[in-house]
């Protein structure tokens, strides 16, 4: 039986001021909260950019913004959502939950943890500054060459190139430090009895994600530094006129970019793998297979990058190789989906909001997986590439995949964080509203792409008008549903039914052995744990 002790020493006998608590904090829970709030703010910043895009595309013709500003919006939307919303949300969840799940008192490197977070606001101030200054009539606006920053186009920007690149450097430093911290915590701070193959899947997926981050963030930093010197110091890494190669950038970028997409989905796999067993009241099916599948996906993610580049004119052998390697990813991903479905099989399911988001994740992520498999096929990709079909694909995996995974995790652990249940009825309204609108938003984009609408265009032929209008209505609906999410979280933080230690009837794992809300310090003495306390203690043989 896990025991929880030492709540009395929680505040070290001294009261922290607001500044001390939220700016100087080295506490994993407070830093987790900071990450989550930051990510929520960025979710709305990036979301409002998406709404500018969808408003312009509501009808054919150019009514609201000029094409140059439209390109800034698509570029900034992606950068803010990827680096500001999705990645920090997962780091926030890791900060909160990894120590609680492995029975550690805090992260292994608490001061570095503080620093990793506090780099982020500065990085985003830098990233967003050209755009903000533009509204005051200063400068030419933010980067407009797409989030991939392909040269030579990205180098046509003005000083925003330097702002963007330095912001990316800062985000990279933050991510790498966060990743080092998570690896150090997981490998060194597990409570006695918490063997690697008894760890919760969320911890496993984050361990693997952290290695991906350490491996690829420096690659991105290198690629953008070469852009920087090409732009400001007269080098020609990517300039054909100086003997360089624009395609080289794409290879280096996607060597980062493809693992990056798994960085944004593996922790969501972990969250869903925690939630489905809880609400099916049955341990995760094929725990070890899940761990190995995650590791296989991570490995494969390093050797498939050029499937983003099938139309750059690679040799035949390269096209075939990258097609086959990409198809292979379907196997471990399939294993995961089959395991989730089988976990539900012969379970005893209830459908609280976290479970609804998790089930929505499984269905809609799989749809995104299907279109991903279609995109892997070179002959068909000659048509799909750079159309709205691709836009539909990656929003299915990123919004109904990663973002739904994050939402599921927030609803799942919110009572543990705040000590209160959220309003279940509102939670369900939030789920169904989001699901309906998000499909109205992204499903018609498949049709647009197949009919021939390229991505990143501010205006389109009238034949595309109908589905674009559906998509924009879905976009605004989905956006406004997220205000409800904020209200639900705010309400749960302030009031709501008192949550017990074990918030959910079927929940297993050490995080459910500490009080709700979790006290400032937990597991100051390692808990004595037995296999029955662990979600996977009795399945990992």
């Amino acid at each position, binding site marked *: 039986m896990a025991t929880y002790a030492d709540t009395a020493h929680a505040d070290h006998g001294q009261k922290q001021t607001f500044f001390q608590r939220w700016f100087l904090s080295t506490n994993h829970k407070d830093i987790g909260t900071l990450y989550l709030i930051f990510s929520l703010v960025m979710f709305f910043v990036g979301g409002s950019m998406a709404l500018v895009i969808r408003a312009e595309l509501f009808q054919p*013709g150019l009514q609201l913004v000029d094409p140059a500003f439209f390109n800034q919006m698509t570029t900034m939307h992606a950068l803010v959502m990827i680096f500001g919303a999705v990645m920090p949300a997962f780091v926030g969840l890791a900060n909160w939950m990894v120590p609680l799940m492995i029975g550690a008192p805090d992260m292994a490197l608490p001061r570095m943890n503080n620093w990793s977070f506090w780099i982020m606001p500065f990085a985003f101030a830098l990233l967003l500054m050209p755009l903000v200054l533009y509204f005051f009539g200063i400068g030419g606006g933010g980067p407009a060459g797409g989030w991939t920053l392909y040269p030579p186009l990205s180098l046509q920007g003005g000083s925003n190139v330097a702002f963007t690149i330095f912001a990316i450097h800062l985000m990279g430093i933050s991510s790498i430090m966060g990743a080092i911290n998570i690896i150090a915590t997981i490998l060194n701070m597990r409570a006695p009895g918490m063997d690697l193959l008894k760890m919760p899947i969320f911890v496993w997926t984050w361990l693997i994600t952290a290695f991906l981050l350490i491996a690829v963030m420096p690659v991105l930093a290198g690629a953008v530094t070469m852009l920087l010197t090409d732009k400001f110091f007269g080098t020609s890494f990517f300039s054909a006129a100086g003997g360089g190669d624009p395609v080289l950038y794409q290879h280096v970028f996607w060597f980062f970019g493809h693992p990056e997409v798994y960085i944004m989905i593996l922790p969501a796999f972990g969250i869903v793998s925690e939630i489905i067993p809880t609400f099916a009241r049955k341990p995760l099916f094929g725990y070890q297979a899940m761990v190995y599948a995650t590791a296989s996906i991570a490995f494969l993610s390093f050797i498939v990058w050029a499937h983003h580049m099938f139309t750059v004119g690679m040799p035949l052998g390269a096209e075939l190789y990258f097609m*086959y390697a990409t198809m292979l990813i379907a196997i471990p991903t399939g294993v995961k989906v089959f395991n989730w479905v089988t976990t539900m099989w012969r379970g*005893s399911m*209830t459908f609280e909001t976290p479970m609804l988001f998790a089930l929505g994740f499984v269905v809609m992520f799989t749809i995104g997986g299907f279109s991903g498999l279609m995109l892997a096929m070179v002959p068909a990709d*000659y048509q799909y590439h750079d159309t709205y079909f691709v836009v539909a694909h990656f929003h299915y995996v990123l919004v109904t995949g990663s973002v739904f995974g994050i939402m599921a995790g927030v609803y799942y652990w919110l009572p543990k964080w705040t000590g209160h249940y959220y309003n279940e009825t509102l939670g369900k309204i939030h789920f169904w509203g989001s699901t309906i609108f998000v499909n109205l938003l992204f499903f018609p984009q498949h049709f647009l792409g197949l009919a*021939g609408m390229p991505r990143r265009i501010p205006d389109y032929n*009238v034949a595309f008008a109908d589905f674009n209008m559906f998509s924009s209505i879905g976009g605004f609906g989905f956006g406004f549903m997220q205000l409800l999410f904020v209200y639900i979280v705010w309400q749960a933080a302030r009031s709501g039914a008192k949550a017990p230690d074990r918030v959910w009837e079927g929940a297993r794992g050490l995080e459910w052995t500490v009080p709700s809300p979790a006290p400032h310090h937990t597991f100051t003495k390692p808990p004595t744990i037995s296999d029955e306390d662990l979600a996977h203690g009795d399945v990992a043989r």
Partner: protein
Amino acid sequence: MKIARPVHAIAGLLAALAAAAASAVGQPERWQLNMTEGVTITAERAYDMHMIMLWICVAIGIVVFGAMAIAIFKFRKSKGAVPDRTFVHSTKLEILWTAVPTLILVVMAVPATIKVIDAYNTQGHEMTVKIVGQQWLWTYEYVGEDVKFTSRLDRASDRMRQSGQVPTLSGDPNYLIDVDRRLVLPTDTKIRFIITADDVIHAWWVPALGWKSDAIPGIINEQWAEIREPGIYRGQCAELCGKDHGFMPIVVEAVPREEFQRQLAAMKAENDTAARTASAAPATAAPQG
């Protein structure tokens, strides 16, 4: 009669979808749901590959989502389901759902490989067209014929996009997919395209031809097409290339071989006249536009 009505409704919907799917190949259609079958073997292969993949995914989807739906309806606590906490591992199942997807992937890979290898075979081409992307127009050259011209967004689309008004299908069905000068190509001729760019990366894409190819400064890409049907085929730049990326359309006019030879001769003659006029009057200022 209660059953008949939904059946009618579904049949009607399917008919409407079929009509929408069987779209004209030359340009996008309203409510178009599916990829064009195009007018080249490459486009046909892309369409076939797409449909193979689509139906395999639909089949897998039915199995997976079906199993999930059954689980959701059958194994719910409100129906008194008791969890079987011992059902957590099965080597048989795990081998099965690793092996079966592998086989399905092999089934997909075979046609895909054949199609890609064939797409790379530019041998036996009868003519070459050079395509150069620039911000924001295309330059075409019939290589060896000394005929070169530019092709950019047509005036009507340009006026409309700057007016801030909402274009309509009845007003201009070719809004943003029309050019001032079309690329004329012969049918039933294996044409090689060599594609590059002057400034930034563009991508030349006409869906009816079945491929897109990036136009990259400093790099020459190669593609080919053998157009089966005369007609007008429209496309757009497919790689973000700056503020007017959405405004550099592509229009190919495919005509029978004899007609093409006639038009090419006319273009050459026009070219010669222009050259002669230019050399005859070197002192006069170059005409604008």
